[in-house]
């Protein structure tokens, strides 16, 4: 059984259907990558998982169907979603942002987790009292990642983390993500336009085209497949 399974998931916004039957799986401990052009339905796929839109079809997490649950319920089941735009609580402090990540945890280890993440991302630690909105895009993306991790999720959904970031910052972000996956066994579903970076840390990859999965393969193989690269990924 996969950690997350989507089975012929269709849906969209009001009258506009964006997804036309998506079949997708994320294995425990793997990084799954969803690639595709603008408007292919990448963001909508993540929104479907988080219960932010109405869908037909089935979505199972740990074998349990999560279709029809509210975003807050899905989050409480152990799925952390970093949306496009990073979801920063801009006028709250960095520290408050981090604590919001852990808001539903009942264990007594929130403080020690905070310390761990501030160690891992010293820039956040230095700015913990600062207004989160005043940080740079890269810092806010690091904050989004750390904040999501504060929930101790089983699955992390990342929506175009590279958007608006300098290439160097993007590279660091993906390096961190790869580390989290290898060292902590974090399962990730990442949606990206920056194909080569995402594929470099991915296990399995999907290419989305107008709401359907056009191609899927092991990430390494997809990266080497010249025909797919030319047709869909543009590099």
């Amino acid at each position, binding site marked *: 059984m996969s950690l997350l399974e989507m089975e012929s998931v269709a849906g969209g916004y009001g009258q506009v259907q964006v997804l036309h039957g998506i079949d997708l799986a994320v294995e425990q401990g793997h990084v799954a990558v969803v690639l595709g052009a603008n408007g292919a339905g990448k963001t909508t796929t993540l929104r479907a998982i988080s219960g932010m839109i109405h869908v037909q079809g089935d979505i199972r997490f740990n074998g349990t169907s999560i279709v029809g649950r509210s975003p*807050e319920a899905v989050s409480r089941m152990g799925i952390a*979603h970093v949306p496009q735009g990073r*979801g920063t609580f801009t006028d709250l402090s960095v520290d*408050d942002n981090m*604590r*919001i990540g852990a808001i539903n945890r009942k264990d007594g280890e929130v403080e020690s987790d905070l310390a761990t993440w501030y160690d891992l991302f010293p820039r956040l630690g230095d700015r913990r009292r600062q207004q989160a*909105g005043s940080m*740079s895009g890269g810092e806010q993306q690091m904050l989004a990642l750390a904040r999501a991790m504060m929930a101790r999720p089983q699955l992390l959904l990342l929506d175009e983390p590279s958007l608006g970031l300098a290439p160097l910052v993007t590279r660091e972000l993906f390096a961190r993500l790869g580390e989290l996956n290898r060292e902590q066994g974090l399962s990730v579903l990442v949606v990206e336009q920056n194909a080569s970076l995402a594929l470099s840390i991915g296990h399995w990859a999907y290419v989305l085209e107008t709401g359907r999965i056009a191609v899927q393969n092991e990430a390494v193989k997809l990266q080497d497949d010249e025909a797919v690269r030319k047709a869909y990924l543009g590099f």
Partner: protein
Amino acid sequence: MQLFVEQVINGIANGAIYGALALALVLIFRSTGVLNFAQGEMAMFSTFITWKLTTGGLPVWGAILISMGIAFIAGAAIERTLIRPFEGSNRSPLNVVIVSLGMFLAINSLAQLVFGTDPQRLPSPVPNRRLTILESSNGGINITYPTLMLIAVLIVECIALWWLLQRTKLGLKLRAVAADADSARLHGIKAGSMLMFGWALSAAIGALAGAMVASSRVGFDASLMQTIIVYAFAAAALGGFDSLWGAVLCGIFVGVANSLTVQYVNALDGIELVMPLALILIVLVVMPNGLFGKRTVERV
């Protein structure tokens, strides 16, 4: 000089009420982005409930607490039944403004229907004595107990709210929803419950403010809050609408400014309401963020 100081103290006491009501306005504005025009009328209705409880023999402090509890529940119910169906990211925020204007009229009429149109008297929670400080040959400065009470209540209210918002998990959830409701939901926070709680809290604060005004007057009727809400709006605008502490401080500023204009500017005799209206206009033109509003720095 003595008159001046007394007027300033009176102004602070009135300002404490404007500040308390502005606090309630800002609390709802921050969590829903909506100005609740019915805030004053909700407070007035609660005041009638407080009064009704005292006529049943309850001590006035007890009546105020019970009425705050009732207002808390009613505020939550109003959010659930009258506000939520009309709001949402795909709807215009004007919808809720119209609903709140409708509530303004409806609650006012309902109060007159249920409690009558005769002025009623709410007993003061503290003895109506006066304290003389800085006594000197020409009399010293007089402060009445009710004046002190108004100021003390505001201080306690501020500390309690600060503690709730900055020191508790519930407060963090409230602030998260106020800052970004969608993102808060993705963190497992029930945004709907928080909005309901915001309305409930505001209604309870309003109930307290209403009782404070009514008890410092000889009598009150359904028009109790109608001028006061204008001062509260002025205070909230001056404070920048998103700052709780700004609302309180500016409430006091408006109160003092008002009591000094009434005392010293004869030209405004009888039309004192010009002062808060002018303040609102000046703030909106000169500094739309208010004195304490965050100039949100946002980098993308």
